[in-house]
């Protein structure tokens, strides 16, 4: 039952404060991680069903006669569900050790599970207003999680994030209201059909512009990125990993892609706007990341740059471009979570995020150094790791579409990425050990375990990439390649 993805984390979240009264640490840790593992396994088993049958699952959940919940699961939403489950499982394990000194673990897990509920609901919804509601569930939980440390920086970052997100959701809501006014429905199927009947480029253009403002802010595409470099570094490391790893992709890219490609139909004008926004994000993110001294801030700017690659690939709109974009989305979720978790391990051991104060940490933290090297090389696109293949597919797609300028910029930015990630590795982990850190220890068991898990996944995807493409990415690409017809033919409920 697909509704499980929404119901299980929601119910556990609501019970978490009570569970916290019974046991402060053990039960919240154990129950959350068992649930996250269950969701991960469930997404894989239900995925096999979809992949083997080749179609999506439509789900009507009835409680008695009154209630009616309609959800849809297809290749694209499955990919996102799997990604949310995978990253949140790694983050859940990491939180067992990392969140010890923040206190009130039960409330932390409750908010964390609500964020997952929001993202899962958004991915499964078949109605524009439901998408908006679940977007808010994930967003409200994430405002509180960003400020969880209660320091001045955290509260300020959270407030900035809240204000800019409110602007984003206002734009999204205005667009939904206009769509409802013209098509008299909020269901994706009816809206897609209505837009075809109306056949108005003015209406599509205006709604697209509002959605680009709204979802662009959520996805932190340049020039709507101002909140991200504050919010992501200020949050506790596991939450930074969730925000950069999955939240900006689900609430920004997934929603935008689903609506633009499967509901509105990607016109050449929108395609060019997305590609230009993508390429500007790649360059601005990479150049600013280069000059950062705070490791988490640098990773945050790097997220903006990598989101640019995803938008560039998907915006291109060809099947190969979409495949590359989705593959990079998948890979980025894994290696960026890994890198944020590693930065948390360093911050916890040394108490600083400033790169110029680190040095030689590999001698004291070999696991963190090794997994961080895997993550850095992956994100920089070094073969045979996973980031190489996704960037290569995007670049080949750009060359095939004769967008040579974009391809050249993508390659150059990739070189800049490699450069600044090598600089991090050298400044943080190699060289002479700074005397101040001679007594520090490697990260505790669960923190190391989750980073090793993610690093192994990076390597495995790099080696087994044809298998991943065939089993997880091709069904998602097929959904998007079918465009508006997919929604009109298959979302008819």
């Amino acid at each position, binding site marked *: 039952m697909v509704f499980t993805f*929404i*119901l299980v984390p*929601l119910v556990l*979240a*609501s019970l978490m*404060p009570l569970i916290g009264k019974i046991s402060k640490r053990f039960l919240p840790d154990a129950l959350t991680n068992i649930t996250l593992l269950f969701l991960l396994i469930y997404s894989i088993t239900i995925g096999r069903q979809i992949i083997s049958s080749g179609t999506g699952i439509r789900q009507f959940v009835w409680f008695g006669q*009154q*209630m*009616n*919940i*309609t*959800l849809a699961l297809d290749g694209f939403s499955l990919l996102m569900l799997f990604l949310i489950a995978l990253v949140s499982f790694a983050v859940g394990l990491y939180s067992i050790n990392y969140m010890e*000194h*923040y*206190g*009130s673990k039960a*409330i*932390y897990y*409750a*908010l964390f599970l*609500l964020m997952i*509920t*929001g993202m899962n*609901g958004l991915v499964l*919804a078949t*109605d524009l*207003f*439901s998408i908006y*509601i*679940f977007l*808010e*569930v994930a967003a*409200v*939980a994430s*405002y*509180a*999680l960003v*400020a*969880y*440390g*209660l320091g001045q920086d955290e509260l300020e970052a959270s407030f900035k994030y809240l204000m800019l997100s409110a602007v984003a959701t206002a734009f999204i809501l205005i667009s939904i209201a*206009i769509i409802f*006014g*013209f*098509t*008299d*429905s909020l269901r994706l199927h*009816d809206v897609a059909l*209505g837009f075809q*009947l*109306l056949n*108005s480029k*003015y*209406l599509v253009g*205006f709604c697209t512009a509002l959605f680009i403002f709204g979802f662009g802010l959520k996805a932190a595409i340049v020039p709507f990125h101002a909140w991200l470099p504050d919010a992501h570094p200020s949050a506790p490391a596991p939450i930074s990993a969730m925000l950069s790893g999955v939240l900006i992709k689900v609430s920004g890219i997934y929603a935008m892609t689903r609506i633009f490609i499967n509901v509105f139909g990607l016109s050449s004008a929108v395609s060019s706007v997305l590609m230009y926004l993508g390429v500007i994000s790649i360059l601005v993110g990479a150049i600013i990341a280069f000059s950062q001294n705070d490791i988490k801030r640098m990773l945050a700017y790097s997220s903006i740059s990598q989101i640019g690659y995803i938008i560039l690939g998907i915006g291109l709109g060809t099947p190969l471009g979409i495949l590359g974009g989705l593959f990079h989305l998948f890979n980025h979720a894994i290696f960026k979570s890994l890198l944020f978790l590693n930065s948390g391990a360093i911050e916890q051991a040394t108490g600083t995020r400033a790169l110029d104060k680190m040095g030689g940490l590999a001698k004291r933290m070999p696991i963190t150094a090794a997994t961080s090297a895997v993550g850095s090389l992956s994100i920089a696109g070094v073969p045979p790791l996973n980031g190489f293949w996704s960037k290569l597919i995007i670049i080949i797609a750009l060359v095939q579409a004769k967008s040579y300028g974009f391809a050249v910029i993508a390659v150059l930015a990739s070189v800049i990425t490699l450069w600044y990630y090598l600089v991090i590795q050298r400044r943080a982990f190699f060289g002479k050990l700074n005397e101040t850190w001679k007594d520090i220890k490697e990260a505790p068991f669960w923190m190391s375990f989750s980073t090793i898990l993610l690093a192994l996944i990076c390597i495995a995807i790099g080696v087994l990439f044809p298998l991943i493409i065939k089993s997880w990415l091709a069904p998602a690409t097929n959904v998007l390649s079918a465009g508006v017809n997919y929604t009109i033919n298959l979302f008819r409920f």
Partner: protein
Amino acid sequence: MIQILLLIALVGFSILAVLLRDLLKAAISLAIASIFLAIIFFRMNASYAGVFEISVVAGLITVLFISTIALTKSDEDVRESKVVSILFPIFFILFIIIDIIVMKTLINRLTTIKYPSPTGSFGQVLWGQRTLDLVGQIGVIFAGVFAVIALFRKRDKNDK
């Protein structure tokens, strides 16, 4: 004509809510703005929306705002940048112009599609057709409550 006057009053009080420095006056302006919005809802036959707007936004939220303002002390005047009071009217007028042009173009050029409207009472529509939104609403309420608990929690002595 009355509709236009009501809309102007709604926008006027909303602007006051943003521009007034005194928080109490700003909260009251917001409440008055939402009363005008509720009247517009009633006039457009959206009585349920009107009732919610009056009871929740004009009533409950204003009470919460005013009690919070009454509980806080103002230590010193926070100086806001003057740029805001210069830029806000410019952006606002620009927004109104774009809004008028775009909406006129859209409304004049397009006919709207009519689907058979959902049958049944308000309750039946809400429970029978928007059930998923209610589940989402439960999520938002929980997130809000837990956010308040998290942000106002007392840190243990052995915390960081």
